[in-house]
């Protein structure tokens, strides 16, 4: 064990800004990425379902109904 | 129309980024592919004269001297073959130590003295606990006394 107390742990030998600044931004970006991926999945399902309904329920036709702006 | 202008911006942005990338390669790499010169290269006249450049090497053991003003530092930088005296006014990085790597930026005076405007510490790729470093140092010293 490297640390005698929690405060010593958070202090990181005086390098707290640099160490925690690295980890905070990294994990923040990971969470942001996961949220964006989940949002995109929802949005795509909704949009494609609407597109399919607009074609007529079976959606088998190859005629191109305009797809709302792709993202 | 809105989607098209958005695409235009994306294409423009993409092209601009790629152009910036190429420019970076051409300008930065041409000058700075070599981030620093060694003292030997400097002595051989391979370093640019009359303009700012960098010298990299080890801070020579026992060479660090602080002037009375408390800000100016004199030390020597070496690649173990050649030695160049350096003077610098400012704060030094924490890892700047005798026997450790450093990169100094500045100009070489006619007196052979390098006037640094920036000093960076260059550390190596070895990571070890203090006890191991201590043991290594002891072994090194022991080895030196034996060989003497």
């Amino acid at each position, binding site marked *: 064990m490297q640390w005698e107390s929690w405060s010593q742990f958070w202090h990181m030998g005086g390098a707290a800004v640099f160490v925690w600044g690295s980890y905070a931004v990294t994990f923040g970006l*990971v969470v942001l990425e996961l949220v964006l991926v989940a949002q995109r999945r929802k949005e795509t399902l909704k949009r494609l379902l609407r597109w399919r309904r607009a074609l007529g329920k079976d959606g088998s036709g190859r005629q191109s109904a305009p797809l709302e702006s792709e993202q | 129309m809105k989607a098209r202008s958005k695409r235009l911006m994306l294409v423009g942005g993409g092209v601009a980024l*790629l152009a910036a990338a190429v420019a970076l390669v051409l300008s930065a790499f041409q000058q700075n592919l070599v981030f620093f010169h060694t003292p030997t290269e400097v002595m051989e006249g391979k370093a640019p004269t009359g303009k700012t450049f960098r010298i990299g090497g080890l801070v020579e053991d026992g060479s660090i001297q602080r002037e009375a003003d408390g800000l100016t530092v004199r030390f020597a930088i070496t690649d173990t073959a050649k030695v160049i005296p350096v003077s610098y006014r400012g704060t030094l990085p924490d890892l700047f130590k005798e026997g450790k790597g450093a990169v100094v930026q500045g100009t070489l005076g006619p007196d052979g003295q390098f006037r640094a405007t920036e000093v960076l510490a260059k*550390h190596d790729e070895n990571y070890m606990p203090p006890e191991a470093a201590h043991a290594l140092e002891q072994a090194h010293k022991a080895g030196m006394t034996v060989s003497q």
Partner: protein
Amino acid sequence: MNSSQRGFRIFRFAAPQVFYPLAGRLAPWFAAAAVALTLVGLWLGFVVAPTDATQGEVYRVIFIHVPAAWMSMFIYLVMAFWSAVGLVMNTRLSFVMSQALAPTGAIFCFVALWTGALWGKPTWGAYWVWDARLTSQLLLLFLYFGFIALTRAIEDPRRADRAGAIIALVGAVNVPIIYFSVKWWNTLHQGASVSLTKAPSMATTMLAGMLVMAFAAWAYTLAVTLWRVRPMILERERHTEWVGEVLEREGGRK
């Protein structure tokens, strides 16, 4: 009609209607592995690994910095691989794979630069220097941005695929430059602590923490890429019967 076309596919797993549910089943497992490995890696990195003799505690940035930098280079190579496969074999799913990887690669690339800056200040004495290693890594970030912007900006998917593939392949040249820059030129950045050609120059527990975090980054990349590629496949294959079924099944529920 469609199924007879698909009969020509060599690899069955490459068929979108097989890959789509497979990706959905695998992703949670990779995500769970990523969480578990991250917890182990952080424990090794912050509890087991000792202070560094030269740098003190600040070296603990390494447990993020090195895995992120490795991942940013590796993902780009994988993108280039899938792009090449797509161009040669004319498999559309390959292009989609490379496009699904790009945002994660860009994030890892940014993280490598960000953590490097925060590590450089207290050790070197500068957040940023224009040495070969740092400059070529910044170039990699621009290549990621260029790839993402271009593939999203071009409306025709086939042209977008090809344009992206060209950036991926051309830019892949930069990856070995990044990796070997510290050997080829004088750089402020130190050499590699871990390589295939020599014994690692790190204390064992430090090395263990770094490698476990690297595996965590692998698992995370697999999970998030599989999640990202699924709606992309639906979009591409929206004319097919199986996507219609998926939409009715998954789009209906909230």
